[in-house]
Structure formats: C-alpha cells, structure tokens
C-alpha cells in the first residue's frame, strides 16, 4: 500500500490535479482510493465518485483538521485495503499553516497556486518545506518569467523537492505526478510525523470563548514575540 498525502491552500487546485492524476494512475493499472478530509462541508467526493473509485469523506468538525487526518490515518489505510486499493490518496482540508500532516512513510505532495505571487512560498511553512513534491498550479495565468521566479522561491524554502508544473483544467503535470506516485514509498509501520505539532493545548482548545487576556492559559505568544506559560 502506498500513502500519498495531498495538502495545499484552499482553492489551489488539489482536487482538480488529483482527478487527472487518478485517471493517469488507472491507465497504469493502479487501484487508487481517495479520502477527502474537510472541516465542515465538501462535495468533492461526488467528483471523485464519477471516476468509479472508492471514496470516503471525513469531516473534522470540532477537531483540528490536521489532527483529524493524522488520528485517522490507520483507519484510512484499513479502509483502503478492504476496498482492494493499492494507493491511498489522502486529500487534506488545507486550512491551517502551522502543521503539516505528513508522516515519514508517505509521499508528501503540496499543491500551491502560482497566481498568489512569489512571496507565498515564504508564508506557507511546513506544508511546503517538508513536502517531497511541490505541484504548482495555474501557471498558465502568468508569464514564464513569473513561473520561474515562483519556482526559485519554492526552491529557496525547500531545496530538495521535486517541482511539478500542473494545470488542473488541462491535466498538464498529471502524468508526471502519477509516475512519481507509482515509484513512491510503501507504508511499513510505526509512522512518525515529519514536523512537530504545536507545543501544548491552549485554553481555546478546552472551550474558552472570552477574548479578554486574563482568561487565557497555556503556552502563549505575545504580539512582540515573547512566549510564556500561564497557568497552574
């Protein structure tokens, strides 16, 4: 079983790129299954179902969507195995930039939209810096020079990654991505996260909704960057 975790900012084209990549994988007689994790609502599963592959939706609701993905990875792999799949494509909600839900034994794919400008790679954080493959989308909307400047910025923050230029509409890049997935690692066991999660729970995690400072506890960071622990 191969595990591919696809992360990326909302609207970057994760689902569209994935749809083309699935077709390319099926042409090579792979049996992909998809789990789509979102926070509150999704209809992406309908788009995947049209391809006739096993699809499962996970809504994180009140739980952090990345933690939800990590917590349910074992379940997802069990489900995919039961469905007779040999590649599990796990598409994350892609909302928070603090963490990256990539285990070590997966192919970590970050999808990023070129039209967001060449400063975006500096803002995305571990989602981008710990990815194996960075898929750049919507490159047809900018000049070649802009694509090359964007690429340079991605390599500045993640020098070892493979960059795939994709287009979710035309399917450009999907063959290349499918090829990389086919030669990607197999899941063994005892997976570890690539990037450390946040330091500790805070009072918002436990249901605090008052804004005033005095009600907040945990490892907290001030506007000026000073970090402290407040609590018992």
């Amino acid at each position, binding site marked *: 079983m191969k595990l591919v975790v696809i992360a990326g900012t909302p609207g970057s084209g994760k689902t569209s790129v994935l749809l083309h990549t699935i077709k390319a994988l099926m042409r090579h007689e792979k049996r992909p299954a998809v789990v789509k994790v979102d926070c509150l609502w999704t209809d992406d599963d309908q788009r995947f179902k049209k391809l006739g592959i096993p699809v499962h939706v996970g809504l994180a609701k009140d739980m952090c969507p990345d933690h939800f993905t990590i917590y349910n990875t074992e379940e997802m792999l069990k489900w995919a195995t039961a469905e007779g799949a040999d590649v599990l494509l796990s598409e994350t909600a892609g909302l928070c930039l603090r963490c990256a839900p990539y285990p070590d034994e997966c192919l970590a794919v970050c999808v990023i939209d070129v*039209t967001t*400008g*060449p400063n975006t790679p500096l803002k995305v954080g571990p989602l981008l810096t710990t990815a194996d493959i960075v898929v750049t989308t919507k490159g*047809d909307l900018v000049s*070649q*020079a802009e694509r090359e400047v*964007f*690429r340079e*910025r991605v390599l500045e923050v993640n020098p070892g990654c493979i960059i795939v230029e994709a287009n979710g509409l035309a399917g450009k890049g999907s063959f290349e991505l499918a090829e990389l997935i086919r030669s990607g690692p197999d899941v063994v066991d005892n997976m570890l996260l690539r990037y450390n999660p946040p330091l500790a729970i805070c009072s918002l995690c436990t249901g605090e909704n008052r804004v005033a400072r005095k009600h907040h506890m945990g490892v907290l960071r001030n506007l000026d960057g000073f970090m402290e622990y407040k609590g018992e």
Partner: protein
Amino acid sequence: MAEIITLTILGGVDKDGVNEPIRSVDISRGEIVGIVGPTGSGKSTLIDDIEQLAQGDTPTGRLLLINGEKPDASVRADPRKKLVAQLSQNMHFLADMTVEEFLQMHARSRGKDEGLVSRVIELANGLTGEPIAPHHHLTSLSGGQSRSLMTADIAVISDSPVVLIDEVENAGIKKQEALQLLAGEGKIVVVVTHDPVLALMSSRRIVIRNGGMVDIITTSEQEQDVCCKISEVDNWLMSLRETIRRGDIVGEVA
C-alpha cells in the same frame, strides 16, 4: 548548452484520442513557423507541449526531440538549462514586486547576471509608449507595458535557442519589432498568430483542428508577395495610429 539544430514534434492524439494526421514536424535553426487554427482548437496546447518538451506525458501524447534525440530530463525543468523561452497570452503580472526586484530574481533563476536588468527595461521602453521605471510595481503596469517587459525579458534574460510566441498582435506593442527582437538570429521561432503579416512572414504554418495537427502549409511565393503588400498597408496604419496617439492631425493620403 548543446547547439540546437532541429526541433522535432512527433504527433500524438487529438481531443477525441484519435491519432493526429501530421505524425512528424522538423523545425530548423533560423526558421519561423506559424500555428493557426480556430480559437479553442489547441494551439496553446501545442505551444505548451513544446515548452515542456513533452515526452508522451502530456494529454496529447506528443513527443519532442532535439537534434533527433530525447532531451535530458534536467533541460525540461531547470530554468538555468532551459532551451525554450515562451511569451504567453498573459497581459498582466500578478507578482507584488517592483520591476527591478522581479527582473533581478528572474535573472538569478536563469543563472544570469543581475546587471542585465537595465538592458531589459531599456529594450521594453523601445516597444511601448509610456516608459517603465525600475521602481514601478509590476501590478500597476498597463497591458502594453507588461507585454513589452515580458518581451524584453525573453530577449535578454530568457535568451534561449527556441522561442515560443502566443499571439503577439493583440498586445498593444509594435509587433514586427517585437518579433524581430524575440527571433534574434539563428533561433527556432514558433508563433501562434492570425495576423496576416506575421503568419505569412513564417516559412510554414501548422494547421490545428480539434486538438490535432491536421496540415502544414508552406508559404508560397504568391503569399510572400501578399505579405510584402500588406506590410506596407500595416506600416501605414501603424503610423496613422501613432499620429493619433500623439494627438496630431492626420494629413492627406500619400
């Protein structure tokens, strides 16, 4: 960088997955080849295939060869080794940077000297009306300014043996001068165009229909004669346009 003598396009499939009629096209150094066809027929897709030196790994299944051989994987992706420069249809920049910062960064990505920046701006200003300054923000440039900057950037920073141009005529810049600047000497130029002057300036034109290459037309002597005549008309029109742009009065027909 190895010298490119020929670029070969091996045919793939059209939008219905049927083999396209033209199975092979060789383009040699110094040649300008046009791509023509209805809107949405797949002209830009062919340009994209050439840009990424497709190896049967794009939806069309086309294969690109350089000097009759498969290109090395590194020349496909690494801008420092890229053999292809592309002027696409985009009329605007989206990057929130100044002209100078952007060009410096692009020069770096192509492994070129950052001193080339002033040369790019100088050339760009020769193609457009309102001058561009290094401190201008890219996003505030007009369509014509953006296109001339992209054109000059290709001529200087992305200087490559293969140049792809997607519709230069609607750009609000001096099209023949832009083409001359881009084509340089001894390059392979592929241009998508329906402008009669530009299309007939090419030695051959590939006809695209339903995503496939269906024909190759060699520009006849008669067509070359037509090209000369319409160039004169075109130049006259352009001088009239400049007269009007300057706010001058148009005189009598010469």
